[in-house]
């Protein structure tokens, strides 16, 4: 009777879940690593890596992806932060319905949404063929703004109003209060929002395809291209590069408690 038999029963409930996750999340990732490090014949090789970096197109793709990813993250945060802040501010009288309105576009299929945006811009005279970067950026912001607002909003409604009042009471001007109190307190939401925007932006090939008339190639596009051509090993290598960037990103923000529940706590 060394073990506490009570806790056993409930612990075991996670077994099917874990089997599924190992089989379909962990093993595939290991396969990616294995594929990235081997050539078509299955022999260990760095040839994938060499040929990837030898091709200047790939380097350009990487740089463009980074810039578009960063740009989109910054734009979404700039546009979304005030929205989330005002939504969470009790004296403005916004209801849950307004918040849900910002989320609702998620229920309209994202390919459809993006195509609609393209058609509207086209009608307004902005042609993706002539201004691929501009239209792509617009498409990105359109698509990712809800994902920015939600985690920010969830952090902000948890914010203790009396701390803000305390700051004013202690003589801080509104801008000082914002910089010294509100911004640090909402940092978890900002980090969550950024992680929900940055990586998907770089990897989403649909938006750049549809909005930029296939004139812009992001990392997602190159993976998709390798996939279409059946070049699993090269595709895996690009995927691995993305994985490494994700690991670095989460390592850099590991000290900030992110707003996990924001993603689950929609309802």
């Amino acid at each position, binding site marked *: *009777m*060394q*073990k*506490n*038999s*009570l806790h056993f029963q409930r612990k075991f409930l996670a077994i099917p879940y874990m089997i599924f996750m190992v089989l379909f999340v962990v093993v595939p990732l290991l396969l990616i690593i294995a594929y990235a490090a081997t050539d078509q014949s299955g022999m260990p090789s760095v040839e994938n890596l060499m040929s990837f970096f030898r091709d200047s197109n790939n380097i350009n793709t990487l740089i463009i992806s980074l810039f578009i990813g960063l740009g989109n993250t910054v734009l979404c945060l700039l546009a979304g932060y005030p929205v989330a802040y005002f939504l969470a501010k009790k004296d403005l009288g916004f209801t849950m319905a307004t918040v849900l309105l910002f989320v609702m576009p998620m229920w309209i299929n994202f390919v459809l949404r993006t195509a609609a945006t393209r058609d509207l811009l086209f009608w307004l005279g902005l042609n993706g063929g002539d201004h691929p970067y501009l239209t792509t950026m617009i498409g990105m912001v359109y698509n990712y703004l809800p994902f920015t607002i939600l985690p920010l909003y969830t952090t902000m409604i948890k914010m203790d109003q009396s701390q803000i009042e305390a700051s004013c009471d202690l003589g801080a001007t509104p801008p000082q209060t914002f910089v010294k109190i509100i911004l640090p307190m909402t940092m978890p939401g900002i980090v969550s929002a950024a992680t929900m925007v940055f990586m998907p932006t770089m990897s989403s090939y649909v938006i750049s395809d549809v909005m930029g008339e296939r004139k812009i190639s992001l990392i997602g596009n190159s993976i998709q291209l390798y996939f279409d051509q059946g070049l699993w090993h090269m595709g895996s290598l690009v995927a691995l590069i993305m994985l490494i960037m994700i690991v670095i990103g989460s390592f850099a923000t590991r000290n900030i408690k992110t707003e996990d529940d924001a993603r689950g706590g929609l309802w």
Partner: protein
Amino acid sequence: MGPKPAVFRKKSFGTLCPAKIKRGDAVVKDDKNIIIELKNVSKHYGQTYAVEDFNLYVKKGEFITFLGPSGCGKTTTLRMIAGFEMPTSGQILLNGTDISGLPPYQRPVNTVFQRYALFPHLDVYDNIAFGLKLKKITDGGKTRKLTRKEISEKVRSALKIVDLEEYEDRDISTLSGGQQQRIAIARAIVNEPEILLLDEPLGALDLKMRKDMQLELKAMHKKLGITFIYVTHDQEEALTLSDTIVVMKDGMIQQIGTPEGIYNEPANAFVADFIGESNIYSGTVIDRLKVRFLGHVFDALDEFEKNEKVDVVVRPEDVKLVPPGEGMVDGRLTDKIFKGIHYEYTMMVGHTEVIIQDTRNLEINCPAGIVIEPDGIHIMKKELTANVYDDAYIDKNNNVVISDFRFPCDVTALVPGSRLDGEGYVIGPDGKVYDFTDADVKATVGLGDIELVDNIDEADAWGNVVENIYKGDHYMMTVRTQQDEDFVIDTEYTYDAGDRVGIRIKPELIGLTLNGEANKYAKK
């Protein structure tokens, strides 16, 4: 406060005993009156002991209380009786059979939880009926479930006991804290358990409500006639409610006894400090039945060896104020607080504080004398005179490592007459060279030799304050490191339990003794 202690206290009902002695050793084991018995029960989580070698029996119908500060193991013990935790070793006997392997749902005990643990999705009726609906009874040789009618009758009578007859259909969320408490009790007693376990059941209530519920619980205990095992950290609650109190600290029983017994005859300074108000002093036994403290030799009733260092406990109500010059010791009254029934005076005898209770309203800031009768003086063995660390060792920089912390020390103390050379080797008087890297040593540090620092960066080690006992002119504070090593420190400064403090020890104040021969470390 309590009644004036008689000179000869009845060593009643469970002897007063230091940690290892089991209560009621005199009682024959097959006593039919014993409902539950814990034998050598220990519980550890990894390396840390929550409960250590716990021995106790509880009589049928008794109201027994586990009393102690948080983390003392009282709740863990209760949870082992309930079946939520399995003891790491030892036995729990219910009516003579070992139940320590039984899951909670097969034990005839029910629990009232600290935060009630009512089921929020069920109403009052369904909460109380929860256990009854699961129950199977034997009726004329056949097992069957209780009928609706039986259940509803039982629920009604349970609600009547807790005085909430009209509340059957109420949602839990609409009840006040006190009402939820009653429902939690009703839910437990409706199953007619042999033992009712109560885990700080009044902790979440406000003071007034708590006092009322105490009386009700006591009345309920009388009416139901079942055994109550009660856990609390509130000494007053324990004294009010219990037939027997088990005082615990650090997973170990400190004392078992009646409320009067524990109050009047605390087994050690911890119990004295924890229960009621007390003056605690370090004293020295001068002669048979003579003890010196407060600069005076007092007559005492407890016998100790001559010259032994002891702790002396004097309850404030046992100190009599007399005009200056007429008492045993003179001092100066410095402070007075009105406490309703009496005044509480603070008197300074030199630098030592004496707390005194007196019903008279006297002038302060004037000299006064005190008298302490022998029966008001409780002498107990000092538990600790120095910090001793048996498993310390020397690192390669000649620091002594205690509990993973490095303290600079004087390694030349390991070899009399030695000196250090430039490279950190110890040169003996005979010219022998010693390398004490990784040498196992015993380190000894006096209670007064440890310095406290607020800034942990300046400290050699740090830990959290776990205990702080006032001893008239200083505090005896226990600082526990993360590795569960204690540093006991005599200090003038006070900290709260839980505060993080740093400690520093002067190298020359760390006594070192080598475990083993010095020659083992001699360089060839």
